């Protein structure tokens, strides 16, 4: 499945500055694996070594927040990689 990925600004050093990139996958897990193949290092900044979404990262498929990486992704969906508003 082909989807559009909206990339938060802290992650754009991996996408050569692109705010939107295309990716494929039927789950968030697969979409992130596709991104990692093309933008090495990007996944680990969002997902820890145990497969958990990091504390200050939020993932959405369209308008639906994802609790984990098993969330399904369908053709034409938009995946949002969001850095949770925090810090100072």
């Amino acid at each position, binding site marked *: 499945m082909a989807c559009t990925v909206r990339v*938060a600004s*802290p*992650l754009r050093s991996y996408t050569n500055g692109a705010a939107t990139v295309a990716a494929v996958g039927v789950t968030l897990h697969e979409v992130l694996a596709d991104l990692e193949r093309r933008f*090495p*290092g990007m996944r*680990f*900044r*969002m*997902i*820890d*070594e*145990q*497969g*958990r979404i*990091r504390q*200050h*990262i939020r993932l959405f498929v369209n308008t639906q927040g994802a609790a984990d990486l098993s969330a399904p992704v369908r053709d034409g969906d938009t995946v949002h990689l969001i*850095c*949770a508003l*925090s*810090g100072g």
Partner: protein
Amino acid sequence: MLPRMSGTLWIGTRKGAFALRADAQRKAWKLTGPQFLGHIIHHIVMDPREPRTLLMAAKTGHLGPTVFRSTDRGRTWREAAQPPAFRKKDDGDGKALAVERVFWLTPGHSSERGTWYAGSSPAGLFRSEDGGERWEPVAGFNDHPLRSQWIPFGTPDGEFLHSIIVDPRDPQHLYVGISIGGVFESTDGGSSWAPLNRGCEADFLPSPDADFGHDPHTVVMSPAAPDRLYQQNHCGIYRMDRPEGTWVRIGRAMPKKIGDIGFPIVAHPRDADTAWVFPMDGTTVWPRTSIGGKPAVYVTRDGGRSWQRQDRGLPTSQAWFTVMRQAMCADTHERTGLYFGTTSGEVWASRNGGGSWTCIARHLPEIFSLTYAG
């Protein structure tokens, strides 16, 4: 033509990396940076085996931890292909360890080019054998069956592993410090570990004489005598002379009104009896600021039997400095330079072993670490 430089201080801050470069007399300092503006930089360390190489421990407020590597003295940086990470566990209880911060970096033994160690929060030890490109967990520590006992509880920010020391005579001989956990030693390259806390107090524990659970703020090995260790602990200043395995509280010789609480301790590069500390207020609610608002470094030149105050040039009142454990260092010049950075963003320098001090940078972000690269 650029003037001849005599060293660089790398500054890790809460908001990026900076560098201070000295002229030949170490009088004029040129500040450069920030690099990685907005990134949380815990440590920047030069590789003494390849001085053009530096590693940097970084994360951001949002993104997970990583390591960057430079092979051109810090002009450009590239991220590690495989940053430090714990072994993936499939127990599904949601409690498997994940690196929150890479906190500490130490180059490996001089005979092991490309080898580095990293310490993390939660407390983990990692090793790279390719110059910091790919990191593997040191299973002998991270998966030790007693690890959960050694590290019974952490600091509010999580417990962390620091003060990784490689014996220059033996690459298999390692020390680490864990806050909170204590000092641990390995003599087989990290395959097995044992606590090394005898004599060290832990007055916050139910049993002050416990074998582990201590809070070493910084542990250093004397470059001049690798059998000598110094430790600035949550509960005082200590010295240990190996092979004896007992810490001696040399902070007892500090003035009573100053006490012996602080974060950093720095060993002299050539004199095993000389070390410096930056005492901070550890009374009542632990302000962790310079005592009475009068910052001072204290030096011992006799292995801790006596201490002398060094405050010439430092503010004499209303200066509430906090100096973090990684934010004080010495250079390798014949007249030893000593440096510290404050959480209020100032860097202070002494060209005469602490005899007098000059502020060489201010208005920086909160300083976490200061390291010297010759």
